[in-house]
Structures are given as structure tokens and as C-alpha cells.
């Protein structure tokens, strides 16, 4: 079997004795699209924090293409090819849409390069293509702060793609979007899979169904089950976690 692209082994994260993740193991293969669900506090966001270097695992290893990511800075991990979209769309509100994307699309990320280099034509074309793709071309010179919530979500995703990472980690990409926008976002994400490896964290079951991706269920920092959505939904443990919490108390 080929080596997985990204692998977490026995990862635990404890915040002052509270375990946000407990012995979590998970692999991600190249070109895969995977969705992760779980009730509040299941450790979904902490899982992304561990991969992207925001939180250091208390125990366990995170390997990307065979080498460890533990202890690397956020910017190093990002340059390795792992990009992340946050739960709330974090865009640079005082920059225009185009400048947000141009900054993300910068091939060299050093202060010196940003000072003296012009943005290559290929990157400029990519920015135009992305703006067309997410329908933000008419807003190229609008400050990102005055976009609607849905437009910010798309801009955030477009910025992530402009970064051209191999792995895209999307934390709640459809939170606060209308149904129509949700469907379009699902299309967008499906089109990214294949070229990219994509992990989607989401609450919205409709959206997960649209994605037609295998589902991983997290609960209390542990992996509960994995499989296609229909199978996972039949799993009594999943039902208990999502619906039957009152019974177990």
C-alpha cells in the first residue's frame, strides 16, 4: 500500500488536563475528499489546529509525506502545502477582493519578495480565474469587509485555493449560507477534490450528503466511526451521540 499523504497517529491534545483529542488516528490519501462530523466539542477544530501547527499535540505524531509536522510553525506547515479555511470566514477586511487573492497567490512569501517582486502574470491570471469562478469579479475592487457573509466564505475558499495547497482543510465552509449558496459551494468543493486532498468539517447533513464523501465521526475527542454517510447514520452509537444524549445522562 502506498504511503498516506497525511497521517495522524495516537494524537492527544490536553488543555490543562482536559482532553480535546484522545488517541486519535486518521489517515488521508492523495486526492481524497473526506468529511468530518461530530457534535459540539467533539474536537473537530482542535483536530485542524493540530495539523496546521496552531496547537501542539501532547502526544502522538502528525506526518505529512513521510515527515513530521509537530513543532513546525504555522507558516512552515502552510508552505509545505496544507491550507486551512477557518470556521468564520477570515479575510483581510481592509484589502480589496483582488488584493486579498493576490496576497494569497504570491509564489514567494518572504518580506523581501513582496517588496521588490511584481506578481507573476500566471498568478494574476489565476486570481482572475478564481474571481470569475466564485462570482466575485464584479467586486474585485471592493473591500472584503463590505462583502456579504456568503461572499466572504467564497473569498476565503478562493484565497485558500490561490495558495495552491495540496491539502485543503475546510472548517464549516457553508455556515451561514443560503441553501442555494450551499449547493454551489458543494459543487465547488467537489471540483477541487482529485487535484487536491480535501477535508471538510461540517454540521450541515444536507451538505455532507451533497458531497457524497466518506464520513468520519468524532465524539469527545475520539474517532467514533468511519464510512459512507448512509451507513454512519444507521450506526446506533452515532444516533446516540447526536440524538440520545438525554438518555445516556
Amino acid at each position: 500500500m502506498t504511503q498516506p499523504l497525511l497521517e495522524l497517529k495516537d494524537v492527544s491534545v490536553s488543555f490543562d488536563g482536559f482532553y480535546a483529542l484522545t488517541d486519535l488516528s486518521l489517515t488521508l490519501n492523495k486526492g481524497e475528499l473526506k468529511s468530518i462530523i461530530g457534535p459540539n466539542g467533539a474536537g473537530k477544530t482542535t483536530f485542524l489546529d493540530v495539523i496546521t501547527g496552531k496547537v501542539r499535540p501532547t502526544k502522538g505524531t502528525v506526518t505529512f509525506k513521510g515527515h513530521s509536522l509537530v513543532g513546525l510553525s504555522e507558516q512552515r506547515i502552510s508552505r509545505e502545502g496544507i491550507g486551512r479555511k477557518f470556521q468564520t470566514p477570515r479575510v483581510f477586511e481592509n484589502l480589496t477582493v483582488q488584493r486579498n487573492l493576490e496576497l494569497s497567490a504570491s509564489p514567494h512569501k518572504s518580506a523581501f519578495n513582496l517588496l521588490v517582486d511584481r506578481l507573476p502574470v500566471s498568478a494574476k491570471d489565476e486570481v482572475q480565474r478564481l474571481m470569475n469562478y466564485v462570482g466575485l469579479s464584479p467586486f474585485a475592487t471592493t473591500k472584503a469587509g463590505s462583502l456579504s457573509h456568503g461572499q466572504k466564505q467564497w473569498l476565503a475558499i478562493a484565497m485558500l485555493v490561490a495558495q495552491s495547497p495540496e491539502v485543503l482543510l475546510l472548517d464549516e465552509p457553508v455556515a451561514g449560507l443560503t441553501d442555494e449558496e450551499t449547493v454551489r459551494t458543494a459543487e465547488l468543493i467537489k471540483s477541487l477534490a482529485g487535484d487536491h486532498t480535501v477535508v471538510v468539517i461540517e454540521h450541515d447533513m444536507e451538505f455532507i450528503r451533497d458531497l457524497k464523501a466518506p464520513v468520519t465521526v468524532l465524539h469527545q475527542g475520539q474517532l467514533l466511526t468511519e464510512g459512507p454517510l448512509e451507513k454512519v447514520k444507521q450506526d446506533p452509537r452515532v444516533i446516540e451521540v447526536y440524538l440520545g444524549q438525554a438518555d445516556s445522562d
Partner: protein
Amino acid sequence: MKIFRRLLPWILLAIALFILPAILSDFRLNLFGRYFSLAITALAIDLIWGYTGLLSLGQGIFFALGGYGVAMYLTLNTESGAGGNGIPKFFENYGVDQLPFFWQPFWSPAFTLIALWLIPAIVAGLVGYLIFRNRIKGVYFSIITQAALMVFFHFFNGQQKLINGTNGLKTSTTELFGQLVGSSDMQLWMYRLTVLLLPVAFLICRYFTTRRFGDALIAIRDDEQRLRFGGFNPVPFKTLVFIVAGALCGVSGALYTVQSGIVSPQFMSISFSIEMVIWVAVGGRGTLVGPIIGAILVNYLRSLVSEALPEFWLFVQGALFIFVVVLMPDGIYGWFTGGGLRQLLAAFGMAPKSRTYPQLDEEVAALNDLS
């Protein structure tokens, strides 16, 4: 209108270079020279605070370092100021008969011209790198820069034997090119030099703020963590702008020193560094024109108020700051460009009010047409 906008900087430059010297007394002109030199500091603070979000309360360090650099050169190179050992007279008061080693290179004009911006830049680089590498941000950054300021202040204030301590170094009685630096002729040249260096400082700041580097600075101000996840390391960006700001403050301090006639540890007083921030807040941070307006306006006001009612300036300054923070959060320049003037006129019925529902107006007009 477009041509006017293109010409405006040149018109202002011409006014400052030719008209102001013709109409103002030597005393007033000298004051304007000081305001212009302080405007360079305001630009520097805008670069790090307005654009990058680093509220430094310690820019006085770099300002004073530049001032001391030029004052040491002038003191050394003034024969009439030399005491028995051929070293500046004040050393005799403290029984020092040998020039401290760090004074030696200041015999050289070339070294001095480089040192007055390079030394502040190096100090800023060291202080900045250590702070930024350890991810110290926000209010902690402000506190540390203020603490650093106090360290420098107390050091300079206490070292009589090295740099004349609390008395500072007087430059107005020193000589340059055989002329008294305090003479009106010399002061006119210093004024002209300041007027020419202010646009240079402006262009330097514009260079750092207009390209993608400038976008990254704004990104650091708005969401530094997000920028890290984009693959950028904010530390070099912040260190570099802090260095540039330090160098600009050094030049500003040197120009101010030769025009005010003295450099002293008071340049590193806490209140002075806070005043610098007020100039930028009043003028409008995050724009390059705002801080220049702010520095000139506040200091001009200061001169006027101090001449009329000497005890009242601090009250006026406080009130001005509160007024701007509450009513003009984007400063004077931001208020103008943001349509503040039109709104004010509209409030007094002197301009059309902006329509809340333009669509509704059209529909009402259409209905009226029908009837």
C-alpha cells in the same frame, strides 16, 4: 481637478520652500521647520501603527538617538566649544579628560550622516526582532516599548560623564561650515533641508505601503494569525517596518535638534512619545497625508496656545485627543475623505442629505408622473 491633484504636492512644496520664508519671521519659520521635522516622525509612527498595528510608545528613543548623533558631531567640531584637552568643555565639569570612545567616530561628518539613521535602525532592529519573534503583540508591545523608552531615558539622564546627562547637548552655539548653527542664515538652510527631506520620507513610506508588502502590513494589522496560515512569517515584515520607522525617527530627531538648538533626555520623556502618537491619531492613521497634517496642525496649535495661555496647552491637547477619538476616529484627513464635511453641511441644511431609499424616491416620482 485631476491636474490639480497632480500638481498639489509641487504647489505645497513651492509654498514651503519659497513663500513661507518670504512672509514669515525667522522665529516663525524656525517653528515651521520644527513642525516639518516632527512630521517625519509622525509618518514613521503611521507606518508601524496606522498600517501595521504596532502601537509603539517608544519612538522617542530613535528620535533622541538621531538628535544626539548630530549634536555630538557639532559639539566635537566646534573649536570655540573645546576645553583644555581639545575635547568639549562640559567634560571638564565632571573631571573627564579623555574623550569617551564612542565619541571618536563623530569627528567624521560622513560617519555622522550615516549614524544618525543607522544607529536608530540597528537599535530598532534588535528591540523589534526580540519582541516580534516572541509573538508579543498589542498592549504588551506598547508597554515594552514604553519600558524601553524609560530605560534609555534614565541611562542618558544619568550619564553626565558620557553625554552631559540631564543638561543635554546644546547645538545652537556650535559651528558648521564656520557659521553658528543658531544663526538665521544657517537656520534657513536647515529649514530648506527639512522641507526637502519630508517628501523623501513620504515617498519611502509610500514605497513600503503601496505594493504587496503594504498589503501584508495591513493583513498583519487586521489578522496576523490568518497571515501565518497563508504561509507568511510576519516577523520579518514587522521587524523591517520597525527598522524603517526607527531610521526615519532618527533623521527627524536630528533635524529637530539642529532647529530647536538642543538635544536632551527630555526627547525620551514618556509624554513626548505619546504626543507623537496623538499627532498621528489627530491627522488620520492609515493614510500617509494624515500624519503630516496632524503633526503640523497639533504643533502649530501648541505654539499658539502656549503663547497665549501657557498653562492651558495640556488641557487643550487632552480635549483635542478625546474629540478626535470620539468624533473622528479616522482623524481629520479620514474625516474629510470619508465625506464628513458633506455630512456636517447637510446637518445644517447646506448640502443635500444622502437619500436613505433612492429606489423609493424614484417610485414616488413615477407615481406623481402618473397622477
